[in-house]
């Protein structure tokens, strides 16, 4: 029975060591910290934030196939306006900063989309014109 202190102390030390990463994050204030995204003004004409968060990749893939395969280049948004099905032309016209919008969330989710291996960010002047 005289080992009780040792056993309990050992258990506490063990738990403290095992959960150290958690305490470390709590101390650093990084626990459950979502990425901070630069959001544009207004509503997205292609869906709610929840929908876009979950399905923007499906939307982009569908657009891609429709444009490249079927030459269906435009889409009518929820606001009734006609838009070009274009990641760089339409999406990035409002979400102007790829680094603080696309990349931040993709880094957080540890996904590596291949879009930017070919597609180029629009010029800043073009963004202003649109």
């Amino acid at each position, binding site marked *: 029975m005289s080992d009780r202190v040792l056993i309990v102390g050992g258990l506490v030390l063990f738990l403290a060591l095992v959960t150290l990463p958690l305490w470390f994050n709590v101390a650093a204030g990084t626990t459950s910290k979502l990425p901070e995204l630069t959001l544009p003004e207004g509503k997205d004409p292609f869906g709610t934030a929840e929908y876009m968060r979950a399905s923007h990749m499906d939307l982009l893939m569908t657009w891609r196939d429709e444009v490249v395969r079927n*030459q269906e280049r435009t889409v009518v948004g929820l606001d009734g306006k006609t838009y070009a099905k274009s990641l760089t032309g339409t999406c990035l016209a409002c979400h102007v900063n790829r680094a603080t919008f696309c990349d931040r969330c993709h880094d957080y989710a540890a996904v590596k989309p291949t879009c930017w291996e070919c597609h*180029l960010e629009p010029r800043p002047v073009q963004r202003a014109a649109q």
Partner: protein
Amino acid sequence: MAGLSALAVAGKRGFDALTDGGRAEGATERRPAARWAMVIDLRKCVNEGGCTDCIAACDRAHNVPHFDERAHDVKWIWREPFEKAFADHGSPYTEDAFKGASLPVLCNHCDNPPCVRVCPVKATWKRDDGIVMMDYHRCIGCRYCMAACPYGARSFNWLDPRPRVKELNPDFPTRTKGVVEMCNFCEERLAKGRAPACVEACGEQALVFGNLHDPGSEVRRLLRTRHAIRRKPELGTGPNVYYLV
């Protein structure tokens, strides 16, 4: 300028027909309103010795990379000596006429494209309007199409092309290593009712683009009035780039 505006009219007409119901969004019925083709007037072109305006315009428009190593080079439209482009047209007495002359060559957007037939993943296909289109997203880089093309019109990206593009045009994507690329007849410009970049860039108006299905088009008028040859028609590919001799 008259030729260019005539082309623009022809192109516009083709597009009016295209957008007139046949291609409306969601429409299931399609009719091939256009058959795009190019006519290159060699009398106007070869006289401009050394001119590469069409090539430069294309490279700028499509982010075509340039590699020093010839084996790595990527070409959409390029110059080829006459006797090489038309190897079967030479004779000891006629070759002086085109000796040293080079002419622009590009994808012929064949009626019966062998590249399309061999592609194992349907990354390349023939559109209703005659354009041999390519989906770079789908290409697996097997290079069967390059082996099949008798015109050498397709290039493979052996290296990352992006650092080798002189001036990046953000309106058009680059390609990646491991992907085949080729002339697309400027389908992205046609969709906006504009003539191909090479046609627009030619100061001599030696390049004419238009709709073969339209009897009133400039290309049809030229083919009616001048003698035209095509590259290797005996192979049965049905090339759609005509050279006026």
